[in-house]
């Protein structure tokens, strides 16, 4: 059942690096992360890779396999032929630290910019009442394991470092949508998404949805509905008039 596979793994640091060739044993049922671990244990003990749960639940082992953003632990070796050379490289949108490990601090910075959940002040703990159907929309987005593959693949930032300042990326635009759809959140988040987090830069090519290991419909269920609501508010004359009147009343 086992065979010798050909692997090319990127090794290096922020200054320089290149692809190294390895020949390594593969057994039945294994995933790419198993092979990386075998390389560590037998050929390259200092090969750097991030991983935790090895069950697709923590989102640590993100990298690119043959150029496609994927979780190493959820990519089965049986999806490749035995002759194929498998190339493993770090996520391209983030600075390399070492080998397959990248600096993902951009994401934590963006997370901190989004205003937190703001429940009604008069609601005591234990008094929250929400219907299942109303929590389900946000629950879909809370399946996110923060692997940041959507951030990696999104062409707005993938090769455009300069856009990172103004654009939070699909993961965090989805976080805004999640809070906006939370039945008990009391903040108005529509303009935020557009004005502070760069929703307008997204042109719904759905690359993020395609790479999501949790199969969250990021574009269809989070980004497009947010865009629609922003548009409603900005250009719907009735909404515009209503907002002017209510503001005047305050």
């Amino acid at each position, binding site marked *: 059942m086992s065979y010798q596979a050909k692997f090319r793994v990127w090794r290096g640091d922020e200054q320089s690096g290149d692809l190294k060739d390895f020949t390594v044993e593969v057994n039945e049922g294994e995933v790419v992360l198993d092979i990386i671990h075998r390389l560590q244990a037998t050929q390259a003990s200092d090969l*750097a890779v991030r991983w935790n749960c090895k069950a697709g*639940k923590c989102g640590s082992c993100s990298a690119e396999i043959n150029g496609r953003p994927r979780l190493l632990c959820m990519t089965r070796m049986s999806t490749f032929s035995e002759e194929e050379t498998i190339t493993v490289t770090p996520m391209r949108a983030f600075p390399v630290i*070492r080998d397959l490990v990248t600096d993902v601090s951009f994401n934590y910075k963006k997370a*901190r910019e989004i205003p937190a959940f703001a429940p009604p002040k008069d609601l005591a703990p234990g008094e929250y009442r929400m219907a299942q159907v109303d929590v389900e929309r946000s629950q879909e987005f809370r399946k996110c394991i923060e692997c940041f593959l959507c951030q990696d693949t999104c062409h707005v930032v993938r090769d455009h470092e300069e856009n990172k300042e103004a654009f939070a990326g699909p993961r965090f635009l989805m976080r805004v949508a999640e809070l906006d759809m939370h039945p008990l959140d009391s903040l108005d988040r529509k303009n935020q998404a557009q004005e502070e987090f760069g929703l307008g830069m997204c042109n719904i090519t759905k690359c993020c949805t395609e790479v999501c290991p949790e199969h969250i419909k990021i574009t269809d269920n989070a980004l497009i509905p947010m865009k629609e609501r922003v548009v409603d508010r900005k250009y719907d004359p009735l909404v515009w008039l209503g907002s002017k009147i209510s503001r005047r009343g305050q």
Partner: protein
Amino acid sequence: MSDFEEHRYDVVIIGAGGAGLRAAIAAREAGLRTAIICKSLFGKAHTVMAEGGIAASMGNANSNDNWQVHYRDTMRGGKFLNNPRMAELHAKEAPDRVWELETYGALFDRTKEGKISQRNFGGHEYPRLAHVGDRTGLELIRTLQQKIVSLQQEDERETGSPDGKLRVFAELTVTELMQDSSGAIAGAFGYWRESGRFVVFRAPAVVLATGGIGKSFKVTSNSWEYTGDGHALALRAGSTLLNMEFVQFHPTGMVWPPSVKGILVTESVRGDGGVLRNSDGKRFMFNYVPDVFRKNYAETEEEADRWYTDPEHNKRPPELLPRDEVARAINSEVKAGRGTPHGGVFLDVSTRLPAEEIIRRLPSMHHQFKELADVDITAEPMEVGPTCHYVMGGVEVDPDSAAAARVPGLFAAGEVAGGMHGSNRLGGNSLSDLLVFGRRAGIGAADYVAGLKGEYPEFSDESLNAASQAALAPFDTENGENPYTLHQELQQTMNDLVGIIRKAEEIAEALNKLQVLKARAKVVSVEGHRQFNPGWHLALDLQNMIAVSECVAKAALIREESRGGHTRDDFPEMSNFWRQRNLICSQVEDEINVVEQPIPEIRDDLKRLFERDELSKYLTEAELPTLADGSAS
């Protein structure tokens, strides 16, 4: 003085899972400058793996539930070796800790009335687990993570600095606790994974929230981080570990393919109707109901099946016995030759629920089996077997403040702390444990720090240099052994000789092997340099794993009975003698010592929560509460 990066805090919290983050929130809210140290990225801690739910007697699904019922279930599950005060605090405070999560933004599944939905789980009398599908741990960790972020946002608004009062140090590993000459906590020493550079924390209080020890075993549901760091740090600092022989083997881990062997299959599969069958197609759990539980479990398949819709008038299915019972039963079936092709048993939900219902209730399991094993759980059974999941043993703590024994300024909460779960933990009681005792540890640390009135203990330069030298030792050894090889040998030893079923000769053999491994681990060498070097990290973790494994094995050899997560083939019964004793591990130099210590008294009012009949199965005549009418309730 030194070239090390240095920080000053009031409290350093080691570990960023549920317990650590909840402790951090409590410490920060009490006004302490708080550092959170995570071994991996923020939000990736092992809590994320918890699937089934958080046990709390909110009574949303069955209004008969209350803290007393939860307390009883917890004590039964732990076979009365639980610290009774911890079990009491846990049962009383769990509902508030869950409701509080909603104020942080958590979105649990709902009942028809819009309350938090609660599901059935092994050992819990009523549906009690607040849940989000089968990804409750992810919801918990993300919610706490987002609460931390919101506190940082508040600080930023007030002070201009988001992490002035509460800072997360991600991908940093602590290798040593720093103490003053009297032994009081004075700080912590560690390294950044990314750069390999050393970091020194000066702080009068440390909360250990480092989780478990599963990586010492070959087949485990635990991630790479679970190397017993907190247990070993506490030992080296002079604190004590309690009842380390109790290790929970979760009955249902994946058994195939080999590379995923051990990955957890949530107990919710059984809570929601899944059944266990052997290769003859028989629901074998009916043959394994022990006497102490016979009254509460169904005797026929018909009754067991009726229970799902009418729990008032039927007894529960034996698939929902506590985990230790189910794990042993599966082990016995496989040993008797009634296992599956890959050495497990069948867990089937496909013939019990419609496909769409399975996908709605168990989405992660559906996904996990589809992607990793090519198995569609809506159409065919899963193959499952026991996997090392949780350690009930841990740092000996004060129940109310979470203060660790013998070391002023040291606190412990969550899996790294011992006592709460006795000899066996019920599913769902872990997440609630993290929240209840995480918060208490944060408050405990704040009270301790306030008592110091600004006079913080200091450590010496010598101890700092010693910590740095110890961490660099693997680079100084030339032609030493490969740490990966040693780790594999350790895992194999613990799995084969101190695993789910134990006997004296095998444990003794394990102890011999551990002595050899301990010596070999001192002369491992690592290649490359300090920057993100997994070989080096493993070399350091290995010392912790070996120390903790020695505690497990030594205590397992001494406890001559079978109870919960400790099964001795040569002593198959529970013993009253041993129920009255805790085993306490300490470390002097390199030696692990284990001594007996009487268990804490159970208060009479807590004893009276049980029927006298049931109590007499566990307690001696002299321990039974005295009541004129002879009944305990």
